[in-house]
């Protein structure tokens, strides 16, 4: 997560309006889902990688690694679609291997089905990767505010995101303090220490929320966390590029 955060803050299009980056990613995502064809998804992955590297100047290695990691997860979970298990005397259609009375089988149709699933999911993942690697969460929250998302949700997102980092720090401090007193010397102690850690973290979060409330009150809290909206720049040619992307994806679908 901290790697994502680092790139989100340090890329060439950090100052570009999140509406523009979000718009491009969302269009690619929707087209992947609506047109639903491996060619479209593949092309969309290409577009998103291209934009991430060419426009946002992210290192290609990082973008590809993120996608490969997701691909491995997807492959593992679509294995059950590509392969099927059955038992009985008759060999199933397609390719089959017999293990005792079990048949492990697959067929071109099943493989095709799995491929479509993987492509669709991976295309969507690439689009979201592009967005989160180029846009810090504060900008996304800012965008949601402009889209008139209810204030309560915005405030919750703001506080949750900040609390993740604060609580991670407390967690690490407490864990080191336990470790220093041999809290993890054997599996049994490790279990007990973890349990203590979790309950302490709850108490810590509660106390922290009280202190936060006090400091917000001190700064004239009026019930919602009102802050200054960010200012962004617009890349005109990115819209044009987006239009070309949409056209290419639709064309790819039409030719199949």
């Amino acid at each position, binding site marked *: 997560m901290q790697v994502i*955060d680092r790139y989100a803050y340090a890329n060439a299009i950090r100052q570009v309006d999140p509406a523009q980056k979000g718009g491009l990613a969302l269009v690619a995502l929707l087209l992947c889902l609506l047109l639903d064809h491996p060619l479209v998804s593949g092309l969309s992955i290409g577009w998103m990688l291209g934009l991430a590297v060419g426009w946002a100047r992210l290192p290609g290695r990082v973008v590809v690694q993120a996608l490969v990691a997701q691909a491995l997860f997807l492959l593992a979970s679509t294995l059950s679609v590509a392969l099927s298990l059955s038992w009985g005397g008759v060999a199933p259609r397609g390719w089959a291997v017999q293990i005792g009375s079990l048949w492990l089988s697959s067929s071109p149709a099943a493989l095709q089905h799995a491929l479509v699933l993987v492509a669709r999911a991976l295309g969507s993942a690439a689009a979201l990767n592009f967005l989160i690697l180029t846009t810090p969460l504060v900008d996304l929250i800012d965008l949601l505010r402009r889209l008139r998302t209810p204030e309560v949700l915005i405030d919750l997102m703001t*506080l949750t995101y*900040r609390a993740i980092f604060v609580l991670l720090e407390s967690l690490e401090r407490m864990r080191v303090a336990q470790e220093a007193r041999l809290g993890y010397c054997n599996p049994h102690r490790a279990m007990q220490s973890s349990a203590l850690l979790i309950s302490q973290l709850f108490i810590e979060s509660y106390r922290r929320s009280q*202190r936060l409330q006090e400091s917000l009150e*001190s700064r*004239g809290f009026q019930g919602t966390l009102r*802050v*200054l909206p960010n200012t962004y720049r617009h890349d005109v040619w990115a819209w044009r590029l987006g239009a070309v992307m949409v056209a290419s994806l639709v064309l790819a679908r039409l030719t199949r």
Partner: protein
Amino acid sequence: MTILVEWEDLVYHYPGGVVALDGASLQLAAGQRMVLLGRNGSGKSTLLRHANGLLRPQRGRVRVAGQPLDYARAGLNVVRRQVGLVFQNPDDQLFSASVAQDISFGPMNLGLDLDEVRARVAEAAQMCDVGDLLERPTHALSMGQKARVALAGVLAMRPLALLADEVLAGLDPWAYEQVVAIFDRLVAQGGAVLLATHDLRLAERWADVVAVMEQGRVRV
């Protein structure tokens, strides 16, 4: 000399019976550098929390700029603009992952227009020397930087008096000097600073007035 904040014979017992204030009185005047010493649990934080209406005394009275504190919402809004309160752990104050947005929170609550808020943020950032951190995420800052951002968030409301609870604890000497310099700038502009601390050296070389709290009372 104008008295900015006046605590008059305050009594406050926490639920559960702990006596935090037991007839505490103190006056903070414009242009004053005051250090409030006292052992842990002597009531320093409780006294500070009374100054902007976070706590309401069970006996006695708080006056800010001569006016008795009005505990209705509108009254509290006025007092919290006049009296800025900074707490020990900046992580308790910084709620936003964006430094600029966090500093803008106070001025936004004052209902100022966006240009004025931007000007206030820039001014407070300059005063606290965090201008180059505005675009950084809060969680990527060092402790000293967080302390200065937290101060900027309060100073952006342009308080008459700044009350700080142990804000120097845990800072390295360099960060420490930077924060003290911010206090000096505020005093030079006619504000008042009250610093609750355990730092005797600061009481000796920096303060105009040293007050000591003991068992819920103040001696000056």
